[in-house]
């Protein structure tokens, strides 16, 4: 299945977007968690504070659906 991951700031550089400035298209087996997907593409999940999709916060145990667009929110520069 295909998942679209979006990120800004330094996380974007490590995501290596290939669809537009912020977005990378990832082909992945079904049933993988976001954490597993990130690890599979070389992005440390510890640098993602949470994922955001369909207006809701998700943790990294979330299992995406085919075609889903997910924003990866890095930690803030301090609260």
């Amino acid at each position, binding site marked *: 299945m295909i998942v679209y991951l*979006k*990120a*800004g*700031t*330094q*996380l974007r550089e*490590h995501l290596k977007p290939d669809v537009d400035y*912020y977005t990378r298209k990832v082909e992945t087996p079904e049933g993988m968690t976001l954490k597993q997907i990130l690890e599979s593409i070389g*992005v*440390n999940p*510890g*640098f993602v*504070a*949470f994922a*955001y999709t369909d*207006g809701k*916060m998700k*943790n990294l145990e979330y299992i995406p659906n085919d075609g889903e667009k997910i*924003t*990866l*929110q*890095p*930690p*803030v*520069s*301090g*609260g």
Partner: protein
Amino acid sequence: MADGFTGTTLRINLSNGEIKKLPTDRKLMRDWYGGRGIVAKICYDEVPRDADPLGPDNVFIITSGILSGAFTPGGSKVEFGSVSPLTNGQGDSNMGGHLGPALKFAGFDLVIFSGISPKPVYICIDNDKVEIRDATKYWGMGSLDCEHVLKQDLGEDFEIATIGPSGERGILFSCISHDFGRQAGRTGQGAVMGSKKIKAIAVRGNKAIKVHNLEALYKHTYDIIQRTKEHPNMEPWQKYGTSFFIRWSNDNAVMPTRNFQTTWYEDVEKIDGESLVTKCLVTHKACFGCWMNCGKYSKAVIEGKKTVFAEGPEYETGALCGPNLGMHDINHVVYINYLLDNYGMDSMSGGGVMAFAMECFEKGLITEKDLEGHTMKWGSIDDVEHFLDMVVNQRGIGAWFAGGTRKAAEKIGKGSEKFAMQVKGQEMSGYDGRWAPGMLLSYMTADIGAHHNRSWTITVDMAEGRETTEGRAKIVIYLQHIRPLFDTWCSCRLFWGELDITPEEYAEAMNLITGWSDTIDQALKVSEKIWNLNRCHYLERNKANGRTFDYPPARSWEDKIPSGPGKGKGVSLEQVEAMLDDYYRERGWDKNGNPSRALLEDLGMGFAADNLEKSGFLGKPLEGGIPKVRGEKYKPKAF
């Protein structure tokens, strides 16, 4: 002159009621940039080194910086400054909202208060008309309550800052409130305002700000607005603000839990960002000219207690009044946020003070008898409410805690100093540094005590190794220059930190407003000057070598993290010492933590070296000389 400045500085002597409008010292502004810089320089120049911070010889300054109100992203801040009663060093604090721009629109770059009013007053600035008005009827009101009443009395179009009973009574961690939920929290600026008997400042202004190149500034900002609209971080920020960070902090074992006893909270899902948004959120709130609306206006509904409203909790209050107090209900955290806001207490220090009290109670160092028959248990909203009532009224041992955790620990003794989680008298921000050594170094070396706003390194620690302290000093120093630069400009740093607006773009905005042509490196140099000025000021006031004051509480190296993902982790005292040695060397300070003449002269601050030498605390020359460049921008190798 079209340079973004109004050209007028207000000096108000509260002892004799004299109000003077003077030309703004533009050279001073040029050299120190305004905002945090100008308050530091004025305090350094005008406050006698032995002045009581709550006495007539301290000054109290309000200013908006170059970027505030001038059509720039996040240009909303107002800066307060004085010698801090909490740290006995230079203190400053800022807040968003609308007051900074209003001050500029009224025609004033700076307001400098001296002396003490014989009776409670509020300052009313209505464009050119400046009055000291009787505030007797407002004295004693809560911060939020007072703003509400003043808005009714003066009009909704006044921007108003208030103190609560906490500031009136000289509680050292008192804050200044504005816009029903924005606070200038740190360093006790509310106590200084209260010591001068100023209950409130009300400002209304509708003049234009003349800038150097309006057309280019407009295009510059418009382009930024378009880019940030598309930024992936914008929508989650708008929905959650900083509260989303609670879970991440907990998962990565930096969450202060039960007075920093541990770093992972088992009930985090009851008080995190999602619970705030689903259970308590009423509406989002934004500052002047900002479309990020990170503010979250919330309602707390608790059986047996009145329903209250508060802006927040943002991350810091959420952490320090949530897991740090063992709270299990987001409504309780919002309620605590409201109590602290209306009393006019810094919610960060307030959380730290309460957590310290809870641990003292847990250990039997304070008892029910001390607490008027009450307890001070983890997670008890009733205990919190009663305790804060004791503190704000300074009843019994409440008076001990009114000075913050350092002073409370001095009174309580019995080893409690170990877990009074503060540096230089200011309570720690909402991150535990035992498994984030750069963060610990940031706390140790911040000029205003343990405040993350000067430097925040958790992701650096994670990338570089959480159990090594190598190389942290240079990164901390760079952050201590770039982050406070936003306080000098009076601009919110979130557009930089979260939405990819570069420091170069901020510098460009500054130049378009002022007509200057400073690079970002030149701006960072100004920030470095301010940093060192504050260090010199601190040493002269506190009459000891700098190293004396740069240690965290002993829990930081004696207690390894006992539970959660960070179990067993922590730094040693040797690592703490080594980090300080490295930091001083990279700063151009000697081993005692004192700035050297070579460094100060390199910064064009020979005057500060002369003064420091007279005080006996000038740093010794460094073997091999000072580093040519102090601080290094972090370039992450890999995530």
